[in-house]
């Protein structure tokens, strides 16, 4: 048993090594994933370990990567694609909406698309234009897909293994801001985590903080500060934004009566809106205050000088918490 701490990025790499060792049908493909090991090094060492037939450097064409994966998956392979940044994923959208997500349905189960599309997401690393988006809601709208966003090394490892096992297409979004933050000790034990359950990271009784992705980091910090003021906050990492584990969210908000949702995506029509609407349908009379959302505004992510203002900060979360706590 190793006690060495590893990062979220290393956990992704570890899970890929594990999955490729366990199943010969797992193949990795994408731009620069082979010799270069990926621009973030998420696929480092895979080419050396598994060879060029299973770790494939593709031509530079995202539609092609996703379309290729549909054909490979239909032949029984389990392609794990990397799209270099979420900002470059949109050419692949047609293949995901029109084919990957519905092949099982349109053929009544005869053909299916067991595939994973990994891509780095989110702002906060002073990256160039088009490298900072959080557009998970686009994918969460598509029936037949699962959309998974890990926020710790352990969840990245366990959820990625589960995503690769899953018989349906999974969009696996890796928050770049967390890639090297908060390393933790992780055993390479091959244990999978459930793909359609929230993770309660901290139990509390006064209010519920709901988040996912990189914002989980600030949300936990806010909860710690609230604790110092004698306020007990429950923190839930949604982790799988499609399908949504509403039962866990409902039970928590029923208990606390107050809820703040924190995410880095723009506010309108985001997954936070879906969660808020569903909670109102289920727990309206248990609420002590209107649900608050702390999000990015409805603007493109600014270039890096202003990106810190774009992302929800601890102070913003605390301000929203005050609103729900002080509500008469």
């Amino acid at each position, binding site marked *: 048993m190793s006690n060495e701490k590893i990062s979220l990025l290393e956990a992704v790499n570890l899970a890929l090594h594990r999955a490729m060792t366990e199943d010969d049908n797992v193949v990795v493909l994408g731009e620069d994933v082979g010799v270069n090991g990926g621009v973030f090094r998420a696929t480092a060492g895979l080419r050396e370990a598994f060879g060029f037939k299973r770790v494939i450097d593709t031509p530079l064409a995202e539609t092609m990567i996703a379309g290729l994966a549909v054909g490979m998956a239909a032949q029984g392979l389990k392609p794990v694609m990397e799209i270099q940044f979420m900002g470059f994923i949109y050419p692949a959208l047609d293949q995901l909406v029109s084919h990957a997500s519905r092949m099982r349905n349109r053929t009544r189960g005869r053909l299916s698309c067991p595939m994973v599309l990994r891509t780095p997401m989110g702002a906060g690393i002073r990256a160039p234009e088009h490298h900072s988006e959080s557009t998970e809601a686009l994918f969460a709208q598509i029936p037949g897909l699962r959309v998974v966003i890990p926020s710790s090394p352990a969840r990245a490892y366990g959820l990625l293994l589960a995503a690769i096992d899953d*018989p349906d297409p999974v969009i696996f979004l890796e928050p770049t801001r967390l890639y090297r933050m908060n390393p933790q000790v992780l055993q390479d034990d091959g244990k999978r985590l459930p793909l359609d359950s929230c993770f309660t990271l901290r139990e509390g009784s006064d209010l519920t903080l709901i988040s996912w992705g990189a914002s989980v980091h600030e949300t936990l910090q806010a909860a710690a500060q609230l604790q110092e003021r004698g306020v007990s906050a429950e923190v839930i990492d949604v982790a799988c934004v499609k399908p949504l584990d509403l039962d866990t969210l409902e039970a928590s908000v029923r208990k606390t009566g107050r809820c703040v949702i924190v995410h880095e995506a723009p506010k309108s029509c985001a997954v936070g809106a879906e969660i808020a609407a569903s909670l109102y349908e289920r727990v309206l009379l248990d609420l002590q205050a209107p649900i608050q959302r702390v999000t990015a505004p409805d603007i493109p992510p600014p270039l890096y000088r202003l990106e810190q203002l774009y992302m929800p900060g601890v102070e913003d979360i605390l301000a929203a918490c005050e609103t729900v706590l002080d509500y008469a």
Partner: protein
Amino acid sequence: MNPLNPDLPFTRYLAADGRLLADLPAWADDFDLLCRLYRQMVLARVFDQKAVALQRTGRIGTYAPTVGQEAISVAIGALMRADDVLVPYYRDTAAQVMRGVKMEEILLYWGGDERGSAFADPAAAQDFPLCVPIATQALHACGVATAMKIRGEHRVAVTTCGDGATSKGDFLEALNVAGAWQLPVVFVVNNNQWAISVPRRIQCGAPTLAQKATGAGFHGEQVDGNDIIAVYDRMQIALERARHGKGPVLLECLSYRLGDHTTADDATRYRSAEELKQAWQEEPIKRLQTFLAAQGVWDEGREQVLIGECQAQVQQAVEAFEAAGNQPLESVFDYVYAQWPAALAEQREQFLERAARRGEGSDHE
């Protein structure tokens, strides 16, 4: 020489009036084979006429006619091996049926029932269902071919599309990767001159579509898509080439869409009766029939027997289609995920409540 592009091969054996223009390839001395191909073409035409009639009488939904495309599709169906994979667009009923898809399944599909793409016959189990979003399927074929290549198999993926599809990025990205990786894939472009209302001449500035393969680093050629001897001959060579690791081939088959784009289209809005009349002079079935008759292996008597057989076969398929009944209501959820997620259970219950409210059960309608 190919008048459109002197560097690009163009193959034709039969003139529009069935006359032989060149020495037949050796395989074509087998008149039994040619008669079998002829029968399949006629079956495809009879089926197509029936499907259009079913749409006109409200028994199926919108349908994409295949009239005029029979030579291309029958050649594909006749030559692919069982373990090859067909990744078709929506005018290759003939190839699909020859590979094991049932005609009643084609009718089910256009008749609004997903079971039409389930392909009950194991012979067709690996084939893709027809593809509506233009050119997207070309990439699936490359993915299938990639899997074959990774596994070192001597199998081929065959994908079809129309002339309009060659304008799309998906098609060009597919050609590019097929060339880069020398994939065992054959691209068959059915250049029927019309992408709904847009004619070939304003679809693309290149004199041929086949030469798009050149930019991707592999072989492309043109063939007369109304001459099944030519299509069969070049398709056979393309398949062998791909099967033996010699890389992809793009076969541009020159044909004409004799029907409307779909039953929801009215081609008289954008093309002349004169042009259509001229195109009927070129069509593939009459051409082969004239040739076979001149060889003394076909006559009016055989023709009448064949038409009767095809009509009976199609009628059987129509009856099977109409006897299929409906899928259970729950089936709309059963295949979205391998297992319907517990987290979405509520939606399924609400849908069934909706059905109950409207008095619909499993035997709805």
